[in-house]
């Protein structure tokens, strides 16, 4: 015996019970409330198509709202709660909405609640509160969700007898086979309807499949059929709300199959008649499942309504279990049902039900144009069978109309998929048309859509099946229209006076059944799939407890505060160390490419918009790269390490983009070149040493005269080979030291010792930003914003006059040469501090003429300075503007100046 609770009351269940079976076993008939009118609802089905019996399972971060009671197996301690009711399930204040139903027809909200948007929001507040079903958890999910790939020759979906047979045959001829069953046992239909195969056959067949290397996954639903025979499977490792082993609650399988067999069976259809939604009205096969598989008899006096033979098995099962079959209402003319031993009424269709205290009391039918009523506490309904063609259709397959079964069946597919069993060949039924009052004849039970709603949509011109669905919300509930679709199509066809296949067809898209969001996210739920990239020197930085700053997926030290410094204080101290003394920083994340071969220089002159080939061995230069449309997209430096070997650096943020660009040019545009372009971004860690004392620090470290500005030499520090590039971003004499990342710690330590020796400091990105702004250096993502040309950034004098670089054609576009373009300027505060990102306006209230792309302070003298983009900025030096940030309530008066605030002549680079 298993103990569980529902709405706070404790019950017991048997091993293997679904929650629905357990509730019925305990005589609980009222389980939920409908979405719109809050009508009392019970258990209607025994499967994933259940529209009514939705409950919230579990507690805390494992709470799963809207769980179908028919699709959760009871475990010890399961906690279930009813939902969409207040104050409780049997007395729900929301059910007053049912009284207003005559006014709340389909799409009523389109026709009222006029007035301003604010007024609508007032009404909407109440509508939103009434809508929804369960409550989402508010705590963090304590479990993980796994995602796995699998490959097979054959994937069989549905482990009924047909599916198992197909799986074993393939496995035993050496194929890789996966067999999937959404129930927690194989061949569950054999428990409902005992057949030739028995439990022993199931066990033996499963063993044969496994012995042949096949994989069997139960409690696993094929939820999506995607391109090229990729099928996603959702596997429940733990039941909803249950604490899973190893913290993994579910697994999402991505299965690439050579061939897919769908043995997915069919779903029984309800019938449309008045008050067909009352607790106690159930689908026939569901009733049989509860009786035969679970040993639960959901009623004592049963009326069966059917249009086919299958429901007679239900009658027999009920009778065998001791229930009284009051009547069988068979839509078919005599002699259908004759000889069954039951009281059969032919030419009979259900009209309505009556109830009391949320239980069924009586059923009324139309028999040969006469009304007949019976007292009953259970009604088992079979309106025919809808093949589960969802996956076939998701795969892009078409459907055929099967007149005997009044159902769509799979036809051609462009993927390697075959449907077998009941899904391909459903049982024959008798076509019937609803005759009862459409107003209370529900077809979408959860969303409370009635035949009258379909009729209204039709009358108002919403006649395509998609309009109908959208106008009435039919099929939009958590059961995804599994029960309602055919009823709606039938009514639509009736209105149009055409056959169902001509009335239209809705498309099935994934998922087949709703899929837990955490499972879709998988491991990505924790970090959005954006893994942090860890610096080679991470441990050394972390030991200093810096303030970190994200840059793309990297995190880099922003500043190294000491003694309670704020970020700004630390950054200013660090920047001053660079200006006055020496500082060192980690520049490892810069993009780096090693370009080798006889055509290396020629190749670089395609990538770079500046000249390269004139560089002598051991020399380097600033360079920038253009997109094909002529816009600047990155900048960096290029160094000639050897006769045929160059090192190209570019920005961290653009590294991946630049790597792709270089590969594209190499592989697609210049396949004939004799060149090797290797991405060495992570191979080399980089350490920058900058400041007036940088040269002497370097000299000590390498034991020789450091290279002059824009020169490079190989050297050795702490016994480790390094490359020294004499380059400066800060505006001071500076060096970048590149070293194999696996040996970088020793080099960093040696540098740090020397820097400390002379009283220098580590500096982070914030100080670097101060330094480069003051110097007037560009940053990709700031001044280089993907909209500026070399001319706009005053880089045009550096363009390779010979052309031939990527972007040369783009630069020739006429609008790029017109006036009124934004151009790079410097800004100097006259009054106030310049807010970064502020708009530049000529006067209060005017539309902006530019913006502040980066703002900082003069490091030594103080005073707010900035870089910006300004319309026709080159011609506006000296002009006064306002830099205003209304969102922050900040502004400054500024003067437009040349964008160099520090050592414009570059004298500090000279030794």
């Amino acid at each position, binding site marked *: 015996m298993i103990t569980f609770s529902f709405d706070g009351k404790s019950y017991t269940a048997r091993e293997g019970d679904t929650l629905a079976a357990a509730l019925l076993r305990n005589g609980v008939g009222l389980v939920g409330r409908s979405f719109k009118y809050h009508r009392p609802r019970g258990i209607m089905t025994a499967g994933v198509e259940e529209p009514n019996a939705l409950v919230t399972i579990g507690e805390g971060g494992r709470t799963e709202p809207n769980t179908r009671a028919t699709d959760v197996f009871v475990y010890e301690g399961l906690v279930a709660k009813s939902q969409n009711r207040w104050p409780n399930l049997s007395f729900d204040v929301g059910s007053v909405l049912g009284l207003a139903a005559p006014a709340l027809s389909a799409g009523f909200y389109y026709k009222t609640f006029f007035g301003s948007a604010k007024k609508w929001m007032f009404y909407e507040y109440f509508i939103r509160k009434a809508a929804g079903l369960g409550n989402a958890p508010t705590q963090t999910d304590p479990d993980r969700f796994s995602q796995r790939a699998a490959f097979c020759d054959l994937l069989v979906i549905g482990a009924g007898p047909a599916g198992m047979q197909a799986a074993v045959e393939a496995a035993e001829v050496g194929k890789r086979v996966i067999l999937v069953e959404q129930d927690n046992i194989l061949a569950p239909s054999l428990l409902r309807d005992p057949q030739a195969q028995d439990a022993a056959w199931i066990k033996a067949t499963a063993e044969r499949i496994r012995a042949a290397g096949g994989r069997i996954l139960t409690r696993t639903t094929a939820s999506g059929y995607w391109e090229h025979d990729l099928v996603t499977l959702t596997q429940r490792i733990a039941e909803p709300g249950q604490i899973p082993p190893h913290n993994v609650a579910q697994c999402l399988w991505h299965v690439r199959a050579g061939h897919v067999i769908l043995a997915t069976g069919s779903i029984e259809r309800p019938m449309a008649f008045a008050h067909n939604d009352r607790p106690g009205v159930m689908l026939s096969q569901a009733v049989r499942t509860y009786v035969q598989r679970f040993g639960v008899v959901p009623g004592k006096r049963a009326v069966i309504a059917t249009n086919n033979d299958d429901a007679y098995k239900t009658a027999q099962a009920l009778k065998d279990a001791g229930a009284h079959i009051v009547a069988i209402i068979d839509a078919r003319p005599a002699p259908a049902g004759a000889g069954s031993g039951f009281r059969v009424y032919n030419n009979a269709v259900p009209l309505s039900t009556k109830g009391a205290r949320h239980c069924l009391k009586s059923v009324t039918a139309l028999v040969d144009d006469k009304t007949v009523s019976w007292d009953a506490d259970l009604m088992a309904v079979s309106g025919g069978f809808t093949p589960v063609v969802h996956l076939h259709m998701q795969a892009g397959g078409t459907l055929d109309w099967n007149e005997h079964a009044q159902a769509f069946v799979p036809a051609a597919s*462009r993927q390697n998929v075959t449907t077998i069993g009941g899904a391909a060949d459903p049982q024959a039924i008798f076509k019937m048309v609803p005759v009862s009052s459409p107003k209370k004849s529900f077809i979408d039970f959860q969303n409370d859509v009635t035949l009258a709603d379909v009729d209204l949509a039709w009358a108002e011109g919403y006649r395509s099946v998609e309009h109908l669905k959208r106008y009435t919300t039919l099929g939009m509930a958590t059961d995804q229209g599994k029960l309602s679709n055919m009823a709606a199509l039938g009514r639509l066809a009736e209105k149009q006076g055409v056959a169902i296949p001509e009335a239209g067809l809705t498309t099935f898209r994934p998922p087949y059944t709703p899929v837990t969001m955490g499972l879709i996210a998988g491991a990505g739920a924790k970090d959005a799939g954006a893994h942090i990239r860890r610096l080679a020197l991470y441990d050394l930085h972390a030991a200093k407890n810096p303030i970190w700053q994200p840059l793309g997926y990297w995190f880099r030290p922003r500043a190294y505060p000491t003694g309670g410094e704020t970020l700004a204080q630390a950054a200013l101290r660090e920047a001053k160390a660079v200006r006055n003394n020496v500082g060192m920083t980690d520049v490892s994340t810069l993009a780096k490419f090693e370009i080798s071969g006889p055509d290396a220089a020629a190749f670089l002159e395609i990538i770079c918009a500046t000249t390269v080939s004139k560089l002598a061995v051991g020399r380097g230069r600033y360079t920038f790269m253009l997109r094909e449309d002529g816009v600047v997209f990155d900048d960096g430096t290029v160094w000639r390490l050897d006769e045929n070997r160059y090192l190209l650096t570019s920005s961290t943020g653009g590294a991946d983009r630049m790597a792709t660009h270089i*590969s594209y040019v190499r592989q697609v545009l210049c396949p004939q070149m004799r060149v090797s372009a290797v991405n060495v971004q992570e191979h080399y860690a980089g350490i920058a040493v900058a400041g007036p004392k940088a040269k002497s620090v370097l000299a000590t470290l390498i034991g020789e005269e450091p290279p002059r500005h824009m020169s490079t030499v190989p050297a050795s520090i702490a016994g480790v080979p390094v490359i020294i590039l004499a380059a400066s971003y800060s505006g001071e004499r500076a060096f970048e030291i590149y070293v194999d990342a696996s040996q970088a710690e020793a080099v960093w330590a040696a540098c740090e010792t020397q820097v400390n020796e002379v009283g220098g400091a580590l500096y982070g990105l914030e100080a670097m930003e101060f330094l480069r702004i003051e110097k007037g250096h560009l940053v990709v993502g700031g001044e280089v914003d993907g909209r500026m040309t070399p001319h706009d950034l005053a880089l045009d004098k550096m363009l390779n006059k010979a052309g031939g670089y990527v972007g040369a054609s783009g630069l020739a576009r006429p609008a790029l040469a017109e006036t009124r373009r934004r151009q790079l300027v410097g800004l100097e505060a006259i009054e106030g501090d310049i807010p970064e990102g502020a708009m530049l306006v000529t006067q209060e209230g005017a539309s902006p003429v530019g913006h502040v792309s980066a703002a900082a302070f003069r490091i030594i003298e103080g005073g707010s300075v900035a870089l910006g983009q300004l319309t026709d900025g080159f011609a506006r030096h000296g002009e006064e503007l306002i830099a205003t940030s209304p969102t922050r309530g900040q502004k400054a008066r500024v003067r437009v100046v040349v964008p160099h605030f520090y050592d414009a002549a570059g004298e500090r680079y000279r030794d």
Partner: protein
Amino acid sequence: MMQFTCPHCGPRAQAEFVYERTVDSVVALDAPPEDAMRTLFTRNNPRGVDDEIWRHTYGCRAWMVITRHRVTNEISAIRAVGPEALT
């Protein structure tokens, strides 16, 4: 998620590949400026078959032309692009 048969690696999941551009948008380095910009900025964009440049970025890093139907995702051809094919 589609599956592409990489000319070098065989059948691989689309997740290993990155779409880069259509073949009709490839601007040769020596294209005249006017043609270059028209090529860069306009596409056939057929509701049918087109030649696309994809890269096996998370695999062998090679570039290839994939001929694909934009509605059915049927792949009719894949050919390698790049330096002299090495075996």
